């Protein structure tokens, strides 16, 4: 659009920036950082302390944000792919996290009742079973969406409604508690490592998805299907299968997030675990500037969006906003950001900047 010449070089650079998808989450993050810097610079203080087990721990708001955003960042990965391929969202992730958590605890408790002294199976086995379970539920959603052509939100509404009951049923309505401390490592700290484990798990997931997108055609195919599934079929792709597989990947993300969630408190409460997290995950995708109707996507922007949401939540807690009013504040921010990210508004902003920038360039000269 903007022609590059000496006069409005800066202007066009900014136009490019405004038009870049990652601009929105970065701008939001910067606004939050600046706001906190002005309000209270100690927000960013990180201290090295000791926890009650005597291990070194880094603490502070920044660590809290990195820690608590982990599940959301992992879910944002799956949600981005689902959104891009099927042009709709999976609203069942909160409920399937409950299922994943319940499966993990069920396997770990084995036949020893809901409060075993020791774990009855290795954690990795429990986790893998949970992966299979949630991928099956993902596959269920995927089949409904891809092959039965049901609206994603309607299709996933089934699991959204039934998921928590299924989770409770898996453990016969009991509330298992795992006493072994090694189970709590995944959601808290590994002794001797001062950074919370969920941060590492999230980074690992990001590396994996980055490699997958780089070395496979998944990203390309997903976008092709999302933009126009008919023409992608003409080009030799199988759009149904690609939509289907994104829901299975979503299931895998859910299992990882579920492990972190149950490990954090070593138990589960079926009705409240990961409550409303699907909305935050969808919000992360939207904040990343991805079209919720499918098509092109930016994984980086979505993940960044997840951290922006947690940054906002922690900031609001810091300023003692009543937590039942939290969603209202989030909504305001979301409205602003979504309006900002609308293509027409960004176009306007770009033009506005072009008008201001040349004058500046003249002055500097």
């Amino acid at each position, binding site marked *: 659009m903007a022609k590059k010449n000496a006069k409005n070089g800066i202007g066009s650079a900014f136009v490019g920036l405004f038009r870049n998808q990652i601009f929105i989450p970065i701008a939001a993050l910067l606004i939050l950082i600046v706001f906190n810097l002005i309000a209270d610079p*100690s927000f960013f203080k990180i201290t090295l*302390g*000791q*926890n*009650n*087990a005597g291990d070194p*721990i880094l*603490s*502070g*708001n920044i660590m*809290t944000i990195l820690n*608590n955003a982990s599940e959301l960042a992992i879910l944002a990965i799956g949600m981005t792919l689902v959104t891009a391929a099927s042009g709709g969202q999976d609203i069942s992730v909160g409920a399937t996290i409950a299922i994943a958590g319940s499966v993990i605890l069920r396997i770990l408790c084995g036949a020893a009742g809901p*409060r075993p002294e020791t774990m009855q199976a290795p954690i990795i086995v429990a986790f893998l079973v949970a992966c299979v379970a949630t991928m*099956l*539920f993902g*596959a*269920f959603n995927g*089949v*409904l969406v891809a*092959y039965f052509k049901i609206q994603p939100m309607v299709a996933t509404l*089934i699991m959204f409604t*039934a998921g*928590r*009951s*299924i989770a*409770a*049923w898996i453990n016969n*309505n*009991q*509330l298992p*508690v795992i006493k072994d401390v090694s189970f709590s490592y995944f959601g*808290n*700290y590994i002794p001797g490592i001062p950074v919370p484990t969920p941060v590492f798990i999230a980074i690992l997931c990001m590396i994996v998805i980055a490699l997958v997108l780089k070395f496979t055609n998944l990203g390309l195919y997903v976008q092709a299907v999302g933009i126009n599934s008919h023409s992608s079929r003409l080009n030799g792709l*199988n759009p149904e*299968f690609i939509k*289907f597989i994104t829901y299975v990947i979503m299931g895998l993300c859910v299992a990882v997030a579920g492990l972190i*969630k149950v490990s*954090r*408190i070593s*138990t589960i*409460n*079926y*009705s*409240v*675990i990961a*409550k409303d997290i699907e909305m935050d995950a969808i919000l992360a995708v939207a904040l990343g500037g991805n079209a919720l109707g499918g098509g092109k996507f930016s994984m980086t922007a979505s993940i960044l969006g997840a951290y922006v949401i947690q940054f906002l*939540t*922690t900031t609001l*807690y*810091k300023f*003692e906003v*009543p*937590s*039942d009013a939290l969603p209202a504040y989030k909504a305001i921010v979301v409205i602003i950001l979504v309006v900002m990210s609308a293509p027409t508004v960004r176009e306007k902003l770009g033009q506005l900047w072009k008008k201001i920038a040349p004058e500046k360039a003249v002055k500097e000269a």
Partner: protein
Amino acid sequence: MKKLLSLMLAVAMIFALAACGGDKPVETPSDATEAVELIKVGIINNDPNESGYRTANDADMKRVFTAENGYEASFAYSLKNDEQIAAAQKFIQDEVDYLLISAAGTAGWDTVLQDAQAAGIQVILFDRTIDADESLYVASIVSDMAKEGQTAVDWLASQNLETYNVIHIQGVMGSSAQIGRTGALDTMVAENDNWNLVTQQTAEWNAETAQQIVQAVIDSGKEFNVVYAENDDMAKGAVAALDAAGISHGVDGDVIIMGFDCNKWALEELFNGNWNYDGQCNPFQADYIDEIIDGLEEGVEPAEKVVIMEEKGFDATTITQADVDQYGI
């Protein structure tokens, strides 16, 4: 091949769902022997999945209302008022002798209770009250949430701390448990200068939200010496935040931990001295109901229409293993 696979998956999932859908509105035990004249009771309860409290409540009902105790009990579960009312109508048609109801919602019960009265069925409410004329039921057995809160606050006051800097973590706003348990603390804070609320936030019964709230207080560097959480899950979340920050809690610790509901694992925490106090919300109404029905069978009306159950508060320094086993849910 892929299509076949996906078809198989779909079929498998449908079967899995069908297997999980154990949401049958009415189930009647088949082992009711007709040797003696059994008292027919229809029990309408909320879904036992709702919480540990409800699970314990349902188990207690099933323990008391058995054929051995002279009852032929039918159960109906729903979290929805209209489904519960429909179940009540079915029980009336089945000509039960007693209708026991834990209502999901307070409104809309008048007509069906009048039908019950016309059919000569006695109605006993448990756990929750409804907005209906008192003449429509013989008794209601309920918890007094405000009293639970008062017992807890009285216990806290008896600790004789110089100042009370309280982190108050609330349940879902507007629920009867939240209103009752918040009321007593709010009054105490308003009346005493040495009682301060460091923060008062709802974590909506969620352990993780509670953890974040306490984390935010710790990160902001504020002083506090009491965590007053309105249920056990939220107390657990708060303790997780304290543990990570290296703040001692419980008996001989810097911070007093208070929870409610008396989950078994919570009482174990109390027994091990990690927490200080846990307030009971008594789910064991079945024995009270049994007593009332025994009386009615002999023609004795219950002395009081509203029976408020006895509810205890447990102190970490005095709790015994027997308490954990008996009162843990």
